[in-house]
């Protein structure tokens, strides 16, 4: 950790996340040295030792840039989100989890009780005495507390005000490097920040726009899982081959990484510019390629998408208009 009071301060935090976003930042290779040269890294649990109380002791607004990854799943996540909001000038919802809930947000399809039960008492878990975690537990030394899980996972902006969004699961390294570069230029007075609320480190079009695959008229008689097609045509649009590809609704910026190597886009860059509800846009996209006019035949074709809700909201459920399953919302 650099000790230089004059350098702007940088922080990074993980809430409900997998840690991949942190790795993606480290994966910017020698650019990480620019971060160190230009910033005073004051808080970054994965990379250095610092305590919450160190952050609490900082002056409000004293951290220039905080990259916050992970969704808000428990009261500790919420507490740190509020704390870092107070301490930071620029708070970036970093990665899909913080921006729109991502894979951890898919848990919003189930009530909390079911999630805990699945984690602690299924055939893969030996728990004969049905011991479940408790929020607080008294031991001779005092009270032990673990964070309390909230009923649904929320993206960061449902809990605090967010300045910028950086999509991706995780964001692509070249995009992270570009954002770091930009902030350094801003600090030096050589560039200006984009308007508050902007999506940074991504494109403003769709993955299809960057996709190298050939598109003709997309009409299909069947949806199929990619593993059930042999061989997959390496040059033709996947959707045109009946593979539900989320490219048409997904924001560009990854250089169509997945369709480029033969896998369908599953949507990790989130909704494309101007899309209010990601799932709704995909419903439109998938519907328009179905070559059928009779309800029975349409239904038969739709049977080829075994989990439609998961398919159209894989990354975006917590950030969608409805945000969660009704049962998950209702649980006390």
């Amino acid at each position, binding site marked *: 950790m650099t000790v230089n009071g004059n350098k702007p301060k940088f922080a990074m935090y993980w809430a409900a996340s997998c840690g991949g976003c942190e790795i993606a930042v480290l994966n910017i290779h020698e650019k990480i040295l620019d971060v160190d040269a230009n910033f005073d890294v004051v808080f970054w649990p994965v990379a250095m030792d610092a305590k919450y109380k160190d952050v609490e002791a900082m002056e409000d607004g004293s951290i220039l840039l905080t990259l916050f990854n992970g969704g808000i799943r428990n009261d500790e996540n*919420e507490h740190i989100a*509020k704390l870092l*909001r*107070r301490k930071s000038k620029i708070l970036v919802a970093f990665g899909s989890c913080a921006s729109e809930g991502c894979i951890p947000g898919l848990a919003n*399809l189930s009530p909390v009780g079911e999630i805990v039960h699945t984690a602690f008492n299924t055939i893969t878990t030996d728990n004969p005495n049905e011991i479940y975690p408790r929020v607080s537990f008294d031991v001779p030394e005092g009270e032990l507390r673990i964070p309390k899980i*909230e*009923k*649904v996972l*929320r993206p960061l902006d*449902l*809990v*605090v*005000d967010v300045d910028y969004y950086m999509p991706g699961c995780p964001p692509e390294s070249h995009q992270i490097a570009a954002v770091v570069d930009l902030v350094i230029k801003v600090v030096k007075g050589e560039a200006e920040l984009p308007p508050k609320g902007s999506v940074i480190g991504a494109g403003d079009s769709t993955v299809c726009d960057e996709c190298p695959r050939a598109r003709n008229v997309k009409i299909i008689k069947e949806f199929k899982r990619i593993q059930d097609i042999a061989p997959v045509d390496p040059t033709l649009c996947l959707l045109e081959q009946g593979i539900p590809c989320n490219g048409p609704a997904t924001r560009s910026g990854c250089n169509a990484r997945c369709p480029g190597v033969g896998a369908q886009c599953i949507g990790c860059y989130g909704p494309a510019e101007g899309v*209010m*509800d990601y*799932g*709704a*846009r995909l*419903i*439109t996209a*998938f*519907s*328009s390629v*179905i070559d*059928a*006019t009779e*309800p029975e035949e*349409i*239904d038969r074709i*739709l049977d080829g*998408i075994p*989990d*439609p*809700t*998961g398919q*159209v*909201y894989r990354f975006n459920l917590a950030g*969608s*208009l*409805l*945000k*969660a*399953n*009704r*049962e*998950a*919302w*209702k649980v006390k």
Partner: protein
Amino acid sequence: MTDQFEPTIIGFTCNWCSYRASDLAGTARMKYAPNVRLIRLMCSGRLDPTFVLRALSGGADGVMITGCHPGECHYIEQNYKALRRFLLLRRVLAGLGIEPERVKLVWASAAEGARFAAETTAFVEEIRKLGPLNWGKVSDELSEISEPVHEEVAA
């Protein structure tokens, strides 16, 4: 006043057939349930599933989508698009714990005022049986948790 639940329903009608059907029902003074707020689109093919989700998240208990009969669309076959979207949307809604019956698709030509009125009344009864959706309320409850956050941030 009775205590029975009065559902709020948003109806999307297309300009050329179903809106005229509702107009006809009105000018012919047919009686039908007053629970539907109509929004006129040029074509049922303009029906973006986002509209339906917005309606449900904003407090509607049901959504009725209407269009010209198959083969009679003013824009040739856009109502088939509406049909396909509707069928996929219902599957997605079911996954979110919303009864798919809360969204209904009705074909009505400009001459079918009576059909429009009858289908509307039948739909209102179906939704009444399902009870309130209350999506707005359940989600508000959650945002209450985060209410003090903004004050803290502003401080």
